[in-house]
């Protein structure tokens, strides 16, 4: 690995994910003409918004040297809680904007608290993030099953119809999840690149000791990353609930793995120290497009979808790390 190649390599890590995305687009367009249609793309974008919003938060957590395995079950728990609260409040409040706002407030608050809890256990007790969030993953998953009594929590039908536009509606033909996702990404990118907080995350992930000696409030920054991730899980849930109006123990299954994968495909380093939000977006898009493509074509056995997905994930990263071979 010589420094002489650095400029090229740098370019590859930047262009790599974009290139992988473009290749997917081309393949998609060739396989099925509907692929590039607005309705298909809009579908794909809207449904990748949940993972996307969460993955933006995950980017910060990972950049600061952390990890959060609990996001998927946290989302399920928050969705369950939100539905329960809204259903309970319905007789008193009636269908209206008020109850939707209440539900949203509950989701955001619960997300924030859940994130803070993870963060406090990690920063105050000094336990490995992997263990803390593996534990809370089990806890939230259990809690939602328990709340739902093993079944599914469903939002009252009238309430759901009222709330539904939050997923299906939109502005200028762009649906709300896409808009919210875009806003979160833009804010995330600005924070990551342009603010002291973003710098501090990268510094902590790069070398915690140096950050501490440089008067960075390490514990606080860490805590904020987890709290922000929790909050974003809340935001994602707000978009998720109106879609099907239900939550069960199967909700949010494996979202954590998908979010982490998106972050890493996007070029953020798993061990921390370097992160980029726009890369994460590309990672999310790559992951959702693969699924979409596999559904739009049927030249392989559906049993093998997972294999193709796995191979593409590896390829997408090979593409971007090309220059690193043999290092």
């Amino acid at each position, binding site marked *: 690995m010589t420094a002489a190649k650095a*400029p090229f390599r740098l370019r590859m890590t930047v262009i790599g994910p974009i290139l992988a995305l473009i290749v997917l687009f081309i393949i998609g367009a060739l396989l099925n003409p509907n692929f590039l249609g607005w309705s298909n793309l809009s579908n794909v974008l809207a449904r990748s918004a949940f993972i996307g919003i969460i993955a933006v938060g995950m980017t910060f957590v990972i950049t600061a040297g952390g990890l959060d395995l609990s996001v998927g079950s946290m989302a399920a728990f928050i969705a369950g809680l939100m539905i329960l609260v809204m259903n309970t409040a319905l007789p008193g409040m009636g269908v209206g904007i008020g109850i939707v706002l209440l539900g949203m407030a509950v989701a955001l608050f619960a997300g924030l608290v859940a994130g803070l809890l993870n963060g406090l256990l990690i920063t105050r007790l000094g336990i490995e993030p992997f263990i803390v969030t593996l534990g809370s993953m089990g806890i939230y998953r259990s809690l939602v099953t328990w709340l739902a009594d093993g079944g599914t929590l469903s939002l009252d039908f009238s309430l759901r119809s009222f709330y539904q536009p939050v997923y299906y509606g939109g502005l200028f033909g762009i649906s709300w999840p896409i808009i919210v996702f875009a806003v979160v990404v833009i804010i995330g990118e600005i924070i990551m690149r342009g603010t*002291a907080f973003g710098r501090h995350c990268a510094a902590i992930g790069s070398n915690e*000791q*140096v950050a*501490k000696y*440089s*008067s960075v*409030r390490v514990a606080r920054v860490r805590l904020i990353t987890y709290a922000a991730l929790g909050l974003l899980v809340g935001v994602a849930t707000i978009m998720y609930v109106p879609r099907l109006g239900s939550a069960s123990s199967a909700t949010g299954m494996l979202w954590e793995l998908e979010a982490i994968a998106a972050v890493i495909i996007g070029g953020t380093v798993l061990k921390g120290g*370097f992160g980029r939000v726009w890369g994460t977006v590309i990672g999310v898009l790559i992951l959702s497009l693969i699924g979409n493509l596999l559904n739009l074509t049927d030249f392989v056995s559906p049993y093998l979808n997972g294999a193709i997905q796995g191979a593409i994930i590896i390829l997408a990263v090979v593409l971007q790390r090309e220059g690193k071979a043999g290092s």
Partner: protein
Amino acid sequence: MGDLVTEVLALRDVSRSFGPIEVLHGVDIALRPGRVHALIGENGAGKSTMMKILAGYQPPTSGDVLLDGAQVGFASMGEAEARGISMIHQEFNLAEQLTVEQNIFLGREMKRGLLLDKPAMRARTRELLARLECRVSPDRVVSSLSNSDKQMVEIAKALLRDTRVLIMDEPTAVLTRSETAILLRQVRALREAGTAVLFTSHKLEEVEEIADDLTIMRDGRVVWTGAADRMNQHGMATAMVGREMSDLFPDKTGQPGDMALEVSGLSVPGHSRDVSFTLRRGEVLGVAGLIGSGRTETFEGLCGLRPATGEVRIFGQPVRIDHPWQAQARGMCYLTEDRKTRGLLLTKGMRENLTLQALAKFDRGLIDRRAEEAALDQAIADFGIRGHRGALVGNLSGGNQQKLLFAKTLLADPQIIIIDEPTRGIDIGTKQQMYDFIRRLAAEGRAIVVISSEMQEVIGLADRILVMRHGRITGELGADATEDAIVRLAMGVAPLSPEQETAQ
């Protein structure tokens, strides 16, 4: 000059580029068995790069490496070592989570059958460390060692490998004088045994003391080479810096002003007890002591980097400091002695490092990049930092890293600055600039603590000197302190009389 036949390792017309930048321009050097060759030059002159090429860690861009007169190209890291060339790196090259013994034998474990022969390795480790008069246990984890002990471990690691050529990149930078003496004794023994030794140091008295041959570099070129006895310290400094060197230390113009820092009964559990002192604006307070006397830990405790108890007043206000940012908010900053693991983010650029500690200054909602760039320009100019602007800090030369660390801490504009080993690895020309700079900071009315293991530095720079031993202050000396007085206090040998020395 040297007899070609007896050269064991040599470079012929070697150049080396990193990206578009060439840092070595056609250099030659020849190492001969049984001789100590000193390589000196300013920070960033290319000494470390040259050594890495000799030891096979980096290939030259052009030119030849000659081993026993024959051209070689080392394909892997192990190859040069297998042929009897070993190197001690300027930056610590130890796996922090491994023990002393594991590090020393890393890659060369002794085996009995398939298994490790631990007793033998432990015994050999003890023996090597004993030769270096280093008393750490072979089972200590390296991350818990002090810098000087780490250096001793590195040296032991190199000594283990029976080498024909030993290359040492600033081995004494983190050592005290007595430890340096031990090291030099080992070097002499190796010389007697016929080893060719190449070493660099910014401490010219050592060079004068031990070198047989001397090569002086400037800006990637060899500017002088020959027998060491043809050069004195003054000549070396002049050749290195390329200008006439005046007095190293500035005048002590200190005008003590208001009380800045009052510390009483400061204790850092396990490291120091009951430390009390005061510091005024405009003053430079030196802190001397042997390695391991707990100076670093005491001041880290003061700045909230370790748990500590005691009473602290800053500008008359009683304060409680549990975290470094609280200290900084009160105007007090600590500049670490350990630039690699505590000071700088090696995988980031200069700009990010420079502004990390004072990021609030550049924060206008968003970070003002242009102001950052301007600050970097300023720092590069003020401290003479050399190196490619876009380079990763880990790729800067050691001395330039130290300068950047200095610039980084000062950017936070602290009123009370605690500088731990300020000139470690800095060339003599820049040292002079740094001393001037410290003095100027004092003259601006800041209060400064300089912790240093270089006795000359403390004496030359400080208005008052505290001496520590076993975590306690054993005495305070005036600006006119002698080395002898400091050593006595540091060693616990009865001083003449404490009252006599603490004149002020």
